[in-house]
């Protein structure tokens, strides 16, 4: 066999084997947790938190915009999860879960920066709220989505979409 043919065969072997070797080594690296996919969406995805018992929900978003999105689902246990759109560069926004009597209060205020004399909002947030029963919702400055009404049996739904008087 000519030397040129040998070189050609070697080249072909290298061309076809190199991607295979790379893929196998990359797969092994992922398996050994050398690469961890923290968040496929690129957002700051906070783990779900538990909620204490409550009878009402009050959602306090930003009045001047609709940067708080609240997705309500129904499940076995009450829990919540924040998905924050703000980046580290622009800092975090104020988000708070608290209780006032028998009311669960969800508060969100995006971070406001003044640039060239004008207010700028860098952030938005999405809250996933899983409830084990239907409770009245009072909302201000928020986008609420009630999704996946499961089970075929639902109690009364009640929403008070008020406008905050400034």
């Amino acid at each position, binding site marked *: 066999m000519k030397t040129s043919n040998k070189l050609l065969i070697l080249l072909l072997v290298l061309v076809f084997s190199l991607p295979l070797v790379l893929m196998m080594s990359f797969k092994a690296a992922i398996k050994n947790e050398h690469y961890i996919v923290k968040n496929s969406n690129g957002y700051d995805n906070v783990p779900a938190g538990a909620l204490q018992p409550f009878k009402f929900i009050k959602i306090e978003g930003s009045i001047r915009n*609709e940067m708080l999105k609240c997705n309500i689902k129904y499940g076995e246990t009450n829990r919540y999860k924040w998905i924050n759109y703000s980046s580290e560069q622009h800092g975090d926004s104020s988000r708070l879960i608290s209780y006032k009597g028998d009311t669960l209060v969800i508060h969100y205020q995006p971070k406001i920066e003044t640039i060239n004399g004008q207010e700028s909002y860098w952030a938005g947030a999405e809250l996933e709220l899983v409830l084990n029963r239907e409770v009245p919702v009072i909302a201000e400055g928020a986008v*609420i989505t*009630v999704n996946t*009404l499961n*089970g*075929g049996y*639902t109690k*009364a739904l009640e929403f008070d*979409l*008020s406008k905050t008087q400034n």
Partner: protein
Amino acid sequence: MNIVTVLDHRPDISDSVTESNRILIPSYTIKSDNSKVNIDAHIRLSKLNLAAKNNSTLSIGKEVLIDSVNAGIAPETIVSAPYKFVGSFKPVTIP
């Protein structure tokens, strides 16, 4: 402005929705003040209580069944609903 949307993403729901696979909601109460309300789901509302004012917007999808409506909406309220429901949303003066 608030927006409330009722959606139905159950995977077992096909294009043809029968009475038996609709979710029954006995009572659905919404007080809307400068808010958007969008109900678009394969549901049946036994009773819809609605009070809307200050440029609120109400949208009801064609797959929503409503047995009875108790609606008090301000004249400027924008209503988008199947023709059979339109007469149920008569404008009233809301203080």
